[in-house]
């Protein structure tokens, strides 16, 4: 090996070690000794450092831009679309009696893919469902949600068809866990997070760990953002908004898992919409000034009537309770 090559390899090792995190005192001393050993080592290190930093520019292109030939193989998902649609509708029927909070493992898979297990899940209004996948991951479906999962030895995939799903992903080496929600694809590395889908709007709330949200178009990666624990990403069309780190907000967004809804200075119409996700009996607001009222607090998601009575007592609104709706006016 040539001297230049040797120095280059050592320099790259040190650069990677630095990127991995703080060096220990002993490592730092070894690094300094190596740098001091020759000006050639310094040249090699500074040269790589400079080029490697400059290579950060590719980040501006987003993934995929540098590799036009890369396509995401979606053959597997296409193959599954029709059976799973049938499965999804069966599951929807099943949801009516699925009061059992916890279902056993996935249903048996497709005939020609013995290694693959696939299943669909759905919940109706006001339902929650906790499912344990064969890999040990657990997913929890919120009200009015539908998802399907497909687990193979190489890959774990879940499609969020609608609604909201919380994921507690088992850490598995070499078996990536990918969540698809509309044109967003979320890649996970052992973590807890939820995905909420409403039409083309996707909200990812990360409780622990780190996920990557990719925007896909015609199966190609356009952009991606990394979301760490405590952050919420809202994505719609070309935009992805990542909110400031706020563990509290994420906890609020995930309070549905305990059957509660948590609001922090949220306007009444948004709160009503949130309650209506969970209940057949809808909260209806009437009157102009009522819409500007902002409320904070934690309420049981299945008791919109109790919430309405609270509004009556605290704000003096009129509450009319009928069979299909609860009408709040001023």
């Amino acid at each position, binding site marked *: 090996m040539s001297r230049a090559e040797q120095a280059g390899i050592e320099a790259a090792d040190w650069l990677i070690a630095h990127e991995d995190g703080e060096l220990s005192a002993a490592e730092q001393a070894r690094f300094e000794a190596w740098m001091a050993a020759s000006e050639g080592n310094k040249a090699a290190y500074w040269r790589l450092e400079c*080029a490697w930093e400059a*290579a950060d520019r590719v980040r501006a*292109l987003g993934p995929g831009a540098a590799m036009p*030939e890369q396509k995401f193989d979606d053959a597997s998902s296409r193959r599954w679309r029709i059976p799973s649609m049938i499965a999804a509708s069966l599951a929807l029927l099943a949801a009516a009696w699925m009061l059992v909070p916890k279902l056993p493992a996935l249903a048996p898979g497709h005939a020609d893919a013995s290694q693959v297990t696939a299943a669909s899940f759905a919940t109706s209004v006001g339902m929650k469902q906790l499912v344990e996948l064969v890999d040990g991951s657990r997913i929890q479906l919120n009200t009015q949600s539908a998802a399907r999962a497909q687990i193979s030895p190489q890959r774990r995939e879940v499609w969020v068809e609608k609604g909201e799903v919380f994921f507690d992903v088992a850490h598995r080496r*070499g078996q990536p866990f990918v969540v698809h929600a509309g044109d967003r694809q979320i890649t996970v590395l052992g973590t807890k997070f939820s995905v909420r889908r409403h039409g083309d709007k996707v909200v990812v709330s990360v409780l622990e760990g780190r996920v990557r949200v990719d925007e896909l178009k015609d199966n190609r990666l356009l952009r991606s953002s990394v979301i760490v624990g405590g952050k919420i990403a809202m994505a719609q069309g070309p935009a992805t908004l990542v909110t400031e780190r706020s563990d509290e907000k994420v906890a609020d967004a995930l309070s549905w898992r305990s059957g509660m809804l948590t609001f922090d200075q949220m306007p009444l119409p948004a709160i009503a919409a949130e309650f209506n996700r969970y209940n057949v009996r809808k909260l209806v607001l009437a009157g102009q000034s009522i819409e500007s009222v902002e409320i904070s607090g934690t309420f049981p998601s299945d008791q919109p009537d109790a919430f309405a009575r609270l509004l009556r007592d605290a704000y003096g609104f009129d509450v009319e309770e009928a069979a299909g709706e609860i009408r709040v006016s001023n």
Partner: protein
Amino acid sequence: MVDDTDIRDWFRREVLPLERQLTHFIRHNWRVEEDVMDLMHDVYELAITGARKGLPAATRPYLFVIARNHLINRAKRARIVSFELVADLELIENERGGFDQERYLNAREALRRAQDGLAKLTPRVRQIVQLRKIDGLNVQETADLLGIGSDAVRQQTSIGMRKLADHMLGGTRKAAPRPQALARRDGGGET
């Protein structure tokens, strides 16, 4: 004695942008292709050693004088020196003036080079560099995602880092003829 911080700034700002010309100069004047990278490495080492006494006022002539003298010394030791070589060296140096536009890359050009460099990596190395650079994954996360060991990730990152630097700074080895289109499509190859 100039300290490391100043030397490093100068090296990155003034010397590295000349790498493409420097390797071109060395390659043009040295018949053994395998020596080119080592010679460039030597020139950098000598340039830094010299700059310890004081940063040169004009980096380009400074660097090319070092390169020329180093080539002559090496040639003498190798007993292959000839008047022709020395005369060539002088001539080349006088011609250097016209290349100034190459020195400082604008951002767009730097991006293009980074992109080209990335495209030239083998698919596996490229994937790893992208996971590190674009997705912001660290070694362990990259290893977990791809289901390979973290040592393998470090090794491939090292390869990617060095290849990219060669491409972006211009100190590339003379490319062996390679079946471009085929090589790219093969996929999955390790370096």
